[in-house]
């Protein structure tokens, strides 16, 4: 039986915004296809053998928790970089996305990142909080989620994850959101990201399976009616100009 091992990094520090839903989505979509999923939570201070991992999830945390996690990241930095360069699959959300970069400059401190992506993040007092929808060249279906971040992420020459259809994205001004690099998806989208966007989940699963078992691997489709309903509810809501206007007025009054 085919099996993937998923490393959940530091859930004791990074566990905001329903990260658990992303893990559960990976797990169930493998199980429903008759494959096995092993999830290993690595707590802060645990040593991590990246060679055993097929997917790494780095979730969101508060600014304070990110500061704490930063010291542990420096210990695994080289191994993590090698894993990514060796086409290891990574999903990094919110704080995890920021930590993949050079640094995150918060209100008081500068948190050193993993330097896997050539990006940096700077904090601004006004948080960017709302539903968000992207159109990603990787998928036919839009990606729907929720963003809640004080950091503005400047992605330089990196490829964004998607173009913002509704919402704010990396900086609130660039019109783009997230980064795709090799088999890494880094994004501000939670909600959580994967259950409502099974196409993103399957994309990552397929990458991980191909890396482990060979390029010919194809995932069987699953009955995803409910997933599509949840996704299209948000997409349709924000495709309705009247609704968007109403929400904008509400937000500023």
């Amino acid at each position, binding site marked *: 039986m085919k099996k993937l091992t998923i490393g959940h990094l530091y859930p*004791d*520090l990074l*566990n*905001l*915004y*329903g*990260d*658990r*839903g992303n893990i*559960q*989505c990976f797990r*169930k979509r493998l199980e429903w296809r008759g494959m096995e999923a092993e999830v290993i939570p690595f707590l*802060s*201070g645990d040593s991590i053998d990246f060679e055993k991992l097929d997917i790494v999830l780095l979730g969101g945390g*508060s*600014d*304070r*928790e990110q500061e*704490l996690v930063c010291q542990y990241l420096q210990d695994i930095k080289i191994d993590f970089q090698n894993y990514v360069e060796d086409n290891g699959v990574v999903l990094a959300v919110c704080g995890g996305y920021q930590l993949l970069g050079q640094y995150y400059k918060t209100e008081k401190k500068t948190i050193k990142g993993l330097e896997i992506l050539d990006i940096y993040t700077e904090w601004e007092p006004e*948080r960017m*909080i*709302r*539903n968000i929808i992207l159109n990603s060249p990787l998928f036919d279906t839009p990606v729907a989620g*929720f963003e*809640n971040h*004080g950091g503005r992420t400047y992605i330089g020459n990196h490829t964004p994850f998607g173009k913002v259809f509704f919402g704010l994205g990396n900086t609130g001004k660039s019109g783009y959101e997230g980064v795709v690099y090799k088999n890494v998806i880094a994004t501000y989208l*939670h*909600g*959580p990201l994967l*259950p*409502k966007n099974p196409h993103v989940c399957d994309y990552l699963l397929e990458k991980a399976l191909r890396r482990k078992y060979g390029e010919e691997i194809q995932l069987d489709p699953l009955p995803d009616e*409910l*997933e599509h*309903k*949840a996704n299209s*509810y948000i997409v349709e809501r924000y495709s309705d100009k009247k609704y968007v206007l109403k929400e904008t007025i*509400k937000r500023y009054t």
Partner: protein
Amino acid sequence: MNLRSKLAVTCAKATSTLIKKLNRGSGVTLPGYVARLIDPAILSTMSGMVREKTIVTMGTNGKTTTNSILYHALKAEGKKVIINRTGANMLNGIISAFVLATDKHGQLDADYACIECDEIASVRVLPQLKPDCALLTNISRDQLDRFGEVDITFQKLKTAVTSVPDSTLIINCDDVLSYTLAAESKNTCVTYGINEQIFDEISRSEIRESIFCRTCGKKLDYEFFHYGQLGIYRCPSCGLTRPNPDYTAANVDFHDEVYSFDMDGMRIDSTARTPYNIYNTLSAYAALMALPAPTGHFKDMIESFDYGNNRESIFTIHGARVQLHLAKNPIGFQQKISLVLKDSNPKDVIIQINDTYQDGEDISWLWDVDFQYLADANAATITTNGTRRHDMGLRLKYEDIDCDSTTDLKGTVETLTTTGTKNLYVIVNYSGLYRTNHLLAGMDDNRKEAGEK
């Protein structure tokens, strides 16, 4: 009271009357806004007219219940008490509570004021209210789309309490966040906590706020967890230790669906069906003792106290038992699931999830609730409803739990109460509460009979 304050009160009252006449809602926040527009210092003036003491209650969970216990305890001692209405816990709502309680001369006739206050609003409310006592129930994640992060909530509350250094804090010392907050402020502090494990596995909620010491950043050691990050903790590095609480509930017993416990030399045979109501009772009692306020009738009052608070109403529809529950954040929802599981009878469950601003637009918190237990809840059917019914459906699907969805709540209740298990749970988040309560009350057998006669 000066002329300006008098004018503010008069206009606020006129506003309230107008709102009611026009039937534009209950009118609990706009009058406060009007009063503040005319007299920015109206809240200090009003709270200064309270004859004895003012208590403010804050925190993520249990505010309304705790405030209600305080109110009823003081009433039982024959005191005149002001209380703000459920939900009206922002600055304007609190001002409304005061100005609408005045007599026709604009004078307040009150011995005590029991005020529930929102965490963000606390920064503006506390310096004006200058409470004798500030009770903090607990701090955990709630409406993150409004608060940003739990750490921001923490900072707001800390700013609020340090602005009133003469107020005594009533602190749940089992919550390391609350206890650290009290330690970092210079206020006098009275603690309450529970030394024994009273929460079952299902209600314990694995999702917790940071269990890393806020002083030195090291991970705390726990003897056990109550729920969330609440428990008996100790920092192995700097020595921060959960203190021995000033007030505690001991020999906690769960029998015939209700809890009894020892508290300050009394045996309380409570009507509480959930363990967190022991905390609410204990915190209210600690506050009364700290004020100090008379407590001669506390035992009698609490033993007949209705913890329901309109948030846990029970109806009879077509002879079926229908319970309405409010669950608006992960910790609260987990407690409800535990409650559902304590009932071993077959049941139907409806879960309504909305995402208005009041509810929180971000529904990712659903994934912080341990829904997998519902698989063993002996539920014949589970139906999702509300704007985010499909997200709720997905949450259950990814635990391999079957469910249906509906946009016709009334029709579904009608069907389930006639052909279902005759034991229906309806769990809603905030914005659906009043409408659903109204809907179910309108379908209640007794109500209909009363109306027909």
